[in-house]
């Protein structure tokens, strides 16, 4: 069993605040992804758990015990580094044996465990090679093996797939997920890739400038983003944002100088306490916008700006009265091929509209 709890963790690098009052609970056997842009504090948070950084304030708990004072090697956590951190002077076999030698494992047991891990990771034929003689994918597996062989309470992975090409990355993602589920080891995974986060994580922690923006399952993060940052960071293509003050003129709607969007009864009810003319931002995901070659009642006209072909989908960039929005539609379901310069009509699905406060960024609806 390995639960990890972070209690009001703060970290300063000199005068720079890297992690700002982070509190988090990671359950046993959970794969928790720390997601955010470069410099958001996700790696620093992980390093505090590993003991490689000393928190300025706050506590780290492992299975209910405070571990702030423990040397990294005594915390029973294993880390896979972004650059793999392989020792140039050691063979693959020596890499696997190295952590076990620190814990005075018997030779027989060492040989057995090295063999097991090598077989599991398909590295049995490469045990006598040095890191410089391995491909990037093989190096990544050696780094994984060095962590696996220790059978730790928790894995910490700092963007381990970052150096792989797209296809290998996708394959390794699936392997990693399966591996973590089989082993049942609590894992903390750091990445800036939101696709990776959504495909791997049981829980995603979105961070920005040292602060936690939102914690939730991949579905919660995607469907109910807490604020503008999370909404814009998650999703490919990212959510469209349009500045639209709330407008009440008989019926409730969103209106700017370029277009007007009427709100249905459900949304009207949700914004009834919001002052009129309050600056809001409308957020709508590209797949939640309907596209039609003909004008249907209530649709907004837009000019096709760019058409991107993505396999069986189109991602159409539209000029909506000066704002550029993206629409993602299945080719077959769309029924027509948009042409650059063509005028098309768009309709936002009412139950998928998000409204954000322009000043605070918080989601209102």
């Amino acid at each position, binding site marked *: 069993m390995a639960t990890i709890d972070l209690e009001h963790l703060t970290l300063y690098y000199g005068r720079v605040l890297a992690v700002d009052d982070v509190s988090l609970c990671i359950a046993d056997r959970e794969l928790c992804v720390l997601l955010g842009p470069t410099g958001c504090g996700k790696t620093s948070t992980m390093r505090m758990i590993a*003991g*490689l950084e000393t928190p300025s304030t706050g506590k780290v708990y492992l299975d209910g015990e405070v571990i702030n004072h423990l040397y990294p*090697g005594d915390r029973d956590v294993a880390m896979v580094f972004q*650059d793999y951190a392989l020792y140039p002077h050691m063979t693959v076999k020596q890499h696997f044996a*190295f952590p076990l030698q620190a814990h005075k494992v018997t030779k027989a047991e060492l040989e057995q465990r090295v063999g097991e891990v090598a077989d599991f990771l398909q590295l049995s034929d490469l045990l006598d090679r040095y890191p410089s003689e391995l491909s990037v994918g093989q190096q990544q597996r050696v780094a994984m093996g060095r962590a696996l062989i220790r059978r730790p309470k928790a894995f910490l992975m700092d963007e381990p797939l970052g150096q792989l090409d797209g296809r290998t990355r996708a394959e390794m993602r699936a392997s990693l997920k399966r591996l973590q589920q089989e082993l049942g080891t609590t894992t903390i995974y750091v990445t800036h890739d939101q696709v990776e986060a959504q495909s791997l994580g049981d829980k995603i922690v979105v961070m920005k400038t040292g602060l936690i923006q939102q914690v939730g399952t991949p579905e919660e993060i995607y469907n109910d983003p807490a604020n503008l940052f999370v909404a814009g960071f998650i999703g490919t293509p990212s959510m469209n944002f349009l500045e639209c003050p709330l407008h009440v003129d008989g019926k409730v709607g969103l209106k700017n100088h370029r277009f007007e969007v009427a709100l249905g009864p459900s949304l009207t009810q949700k914004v009834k306490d919001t002052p009129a003319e309050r600056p809001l931002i409308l957020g709508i995901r590209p797949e939640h916008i309907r596209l039609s070659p003909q004008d249907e009642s209530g649709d907004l006209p837009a000019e096709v700006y760019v058409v991107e072909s993505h396999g069986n989908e189109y991602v159409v960039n539209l000029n909506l009265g000066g704002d550029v929005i993206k629409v993602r539609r299945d080719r077959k379901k769309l029924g027509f091929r948009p042409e650059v310069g063509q005028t098309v009509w768009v309709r936002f699905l009412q139950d998928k509209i998000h409204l954000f406060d322009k000043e605070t960024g918080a989601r209102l609806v």
Partner: protein
Amino acid sequence: MIADLWSKARQSLLFLSMVIIGLVFAFPLVWIAMSSFKTRVQNFALPPLVIFQPTLENYTGLFQLQNPAFMADYRNSFVIAVGSTVISLVMGCLTAYGFSRHEIKMGGCLFGWILSLRFFPVVAMVIPIYVLFRGLKLLDNHAALIAVYCIFNISFTIWFLKGFFDEIPKSLEEAARLDGYSPFQVFYRVCLPLVRPGIITAAIFCLIQSINEFLLAMSLTARVAETAPVALAKLQTAVGPDWGKMCAVSSLLIVPILIFTILVRNQLIRGMSFGKLK
């Protein structure tokens, strides 16, 4: 086709240049070795002899010398050089590692001061050191000369090896710490093997520096701790320098270093080029 010819011609020219430069550098060493196998008369022959009947009289004569007692001096040179080198490498490695890995208050100034010791003119410090050692009754003493040589060798070693330690990614050490190794074990098992080229290069420089050193050895030693360069100077006889024996002494000093260098040449090349970690 012209491009191929030009490429081949350029490679040939480069090779020829390398051979010429190699001969130019090797020539003094070869001439010293040859002269050590010549008689006194052969050494003064004009034009200089390239083909001659070699003799071992210069080498056998060294063993029979009483003043200087060459074999004792030869042994002293290597004991002092090796002793100074080993101490310098141990202390230099640890200090260089500390400078590389830890934020030290005024570390830049401290590092610069340490480096300045390397450049300090020996001639300016001979007399003060002599007075100091005389007061401490440390004249003509192996340990005293080793300590003095360490002043220069440690400062060089620290400066030289810091660059090597800087090249080691910190993530390697962090990985070892997480695996359960103590800070010293991380230094010993991870960092030291990776700076081996630097250590070997520093060792060669320290050995050469120590073996060649004359001024301090002449000033601080008499009979017990006298070194080979001092003995070499004593081969200036009343009738002129005994070139044969001087070249024999020089050859005997060069050969061990040469053998060591040849044995570790791969590491030396990596060290001289600040060999990249792979």
